[in-house]
């Protein structure tokens, strides 16, 4: 069984004025000039390098870190690289108010944990870059610095099944055995 509780240091993706970034599209996450790259290991270095103020994210992030962001994260294109670049960096999870539909699928299918926290815009000031966050994927419960708890959306059944299997392909193979 894969770990359903994830703990890590958070990066809160904010604008220079302190507001939470909304509508971060896939060109800001992984710009189309790198799309010829097909090896996941080479993708991490470009994560967020077209997002103003966060160009050096890949250099600062550590494996296990958790990214917090606003509404409609991963809007735009269907590129898998926009998920894979975080996997390449070893990012533990992404917590956003909401996601672009294709981005959400891509993350689920690659077994990469993403959690929606519908109230995040209103309460984001409680979260500071460097804080510790624990995320329970099964219940959607988040615990900040071991104290405050928040209720996000738990994994759906398909999301948990794919996550436990590893990815969509591994999950597909479990279906064949039935």
């Amino acid at each position: 069984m894969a770990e359903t509780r994830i703990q890590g240091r958070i990066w809160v993706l904010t604008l220079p004025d302190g507001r939470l970034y909304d509508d971060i599209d896939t060109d800001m996450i992984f710009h189309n000039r790198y799309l010829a790259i097909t090896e996941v290991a080479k993708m991490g270095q470009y994560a967020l390098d077209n997002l103003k103020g966060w160009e050096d994210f890949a250099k600062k992030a550590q494996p296990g870190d958790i990214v917090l962001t606003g509404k409609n994260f991963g809007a735009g294109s269907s590129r898998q690289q926009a998920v894979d670049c975080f996997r390449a960096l070893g990012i533990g999870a992404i917590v956003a108010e909401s996601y672009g539909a294709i981005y959400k699928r891509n993350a689920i299918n690659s077994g990469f944990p993403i959690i929606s926290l519908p109230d995040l815009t209103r309460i984001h000031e409680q979260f500071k870059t460097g804080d510790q966050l624990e995320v329970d994927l099964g219940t959607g419960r988040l615990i900040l610095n071991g104290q405050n708890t928040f209720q996000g959306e738990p994994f759906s059944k398909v999301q948990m099944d794919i996550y436990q299997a590893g990815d969509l392909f591994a999950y597909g193979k479990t279906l064949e055995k039935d």
Partner: protein
Amino acid sequence: MGKTIIEKIIQAHSDEPVAPGKIVWMGLDVRSARDFGGANVVKNYKANYGDTPVADVGRTFFTFDCVVPANNIPYAVNQHLARRWATSQGIQVYDVNAGIGSHVMIEKGLALPGGTVVGTDSHLNILGAIGTFGQGMGDQDIAFAFKAGKTWFEVPPTMKVTVKGDLHYPCTPKDLTLAVLRVLGASGALGKAIEFYGPAVEALDLPGRITLSSMVTEMGGIVGLIPASKAVLDYCRKRSGRADLHGVYADPDAAYVEEVFVDITNLEPLIACPPKPDNVKTVREVAGLRVDSVFIGSCTNGRWEDLRLVADLVRAHGKKIQPWVMASIVPATHEVWEQILRDGTLQTLFDAGFVISNAGCGGCAAGQIGMTGDKEVQVSTGNRNFAGKQGPGDTYLASPLVAAWAALAGEITVPKA
């Protein structure tokens, strides 16, 4: 309780009861990949399924449209990797001369009203224009679809968008589309299917419907479905050779999660200002801005009818583009390219000073044409103007008329009738 269009389409492709929010397995009529993502689809497929055949070679296609022909070695390598693998599998490739995959699928009768189509193009939901559930997906998803012929899908709730009023020249379907985007914003349809209604929508021809459905992605929507008109059905019947084709329509008592009205009475030409497609203003508000380049094309506005509008404007005013403007045109497909070649449109555009390329996506994909330099002001008929997407310049999204007029005038202005 009745069903919406998307619920009916998914139900017709699933053994499980369909309801909004439910995740069901859905059969896929067409599974495709383009040159972006295509090589990764092959890689994922080979890693997981080895040399075994795809589920149904007759329903599986490659459509190369992003960087066509490849203008650098990595793309050439990726395209040829996909091309060779397709050949080994017996999969048909609509190659670098074919044009934008989603449009090719409509022209070739592969995408049909009521059908399900997936591919690596995030604007594949453009197929909502003919009442098809098209969906862009990532390369793992598509590799899985190639093999399984089905995928899981969370049935989206449906919102109903009714457009009130009629469309009048110089407003075009693009202005109607931007008017809807102005109301909904970038996440107004997030996670939802849209159904479009109203006399102005019903009156749209196929290219106009394509324009409207193409920007549902920019509204955050899953797909924007336009109930198929008789003209659309006739077109699809002819192209597919399927005389028995029918449209899929919502039940009168279908449940909508939200209903939105967009009034286009007294609409004037609109323009989406950088850096977001939903940053919509009237052309009048930004009039006078000097323009460095113009791009006319894309899956949103690269049809013959779009290019014909441009040619008519050029002829009516007997003008050439201003010497400081770099204006380029990319027809959506090979068929459109042939049409403008044969009916004189190409000559008119050439004489006016436009650069005209082979069919494809052009600048949206940092492809062959339409990239910008620092501080460059570009008017584009495309669908995205996110910061840095087409380059460091500022991209304004507008109709073919507004874009053409900007090329002729050298600045953004309201087109003269």
